């Protein structure tokens, strides 16, 4: 069954690192409509920051490109987040998702981005094709607070 979408936003921005903070603030503001806890907002911000940083650092390694942040709020109080780039893509997704694996050690990338996304979100899916780009899709169900 298709889930009912209560609200939706698509934001596109160039892959400059100053937009990492913009993207996570935008996601937090969108998710705030679902009345999340402080911890849930922190987790969403961190996961978005990781995905957007990956697009900027790895997707568009030697050039600028467009990153798309797609946000949805479903009626079951789930927040859906997709971060899409049309950059270099990932040759081996399994290897890329292995904790501590990085192709950018010289830039002090810790190789923990996907581990953080996995532990802070309920669902994580990575779709990528070499030379075509990467889309990271995440979902998090917010537990309604007692009113």
């Amino acid at each position, binding site marked *: 069954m298709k889930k009912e979408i209560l609200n939706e936003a698509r934001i596109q921005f160039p892959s400059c690192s100053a937009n990492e903070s913009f993207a996570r603030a935008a996601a937090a503001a969108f998710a705030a409509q679902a009345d999340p806890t402080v911890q849930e907002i922190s987790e969403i911000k961190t996961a978005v*920051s990781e995905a957007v940083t990956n697009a900027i650092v790895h997707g568009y390694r030697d050039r600028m490109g467009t990153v798309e942040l797609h946000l949805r709020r479903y009626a079951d109080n789930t927040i859906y987040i997709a971060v899409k780039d049309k950059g270099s893509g990932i040759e081996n997704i399994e290897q890329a998702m292995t904790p501590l694996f990085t192709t950018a050690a010289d830039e*002090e990338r*810790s190789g923990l981005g996907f581990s953080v996304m996995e532990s802070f979100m309920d669902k994580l899916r990575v779709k990528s094709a070499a030379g075509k780009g990467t889309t990271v899709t995440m979902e998090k169900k917010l537990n309604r607070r007692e009113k």
Partner: protein
Amino acid sequence: MVKLYNDGKRITAALSGDIDHHTARLMRAELDDVISHSHPEMLIIDLENVGFMDSSGIGLILGRLKAMRENGGDIIIKNARPNIAAVIRISGLSNLIAEGVRT
């Protein structure tokens, strides 16, 4: 931003603002500068005024930890907020977090 408090062998680096890929580069330069010039035995990273940190902060801490340990020194992290402590736990660096350390 990085504020430094130096008492000779121990240096406290009080970081503030968000730590992400964008800001970590500037903090890295400042921290490396103090490590190479002052050769502290202990670098205390105070995160009291850091509201956000993603895994870029882990890269920042790991890089400085390596530099400190190469010279026989070490790092402790203090005043990490719960959201930041959670990221540190994922990285396996929890043992660097000092509980209730005041300097």
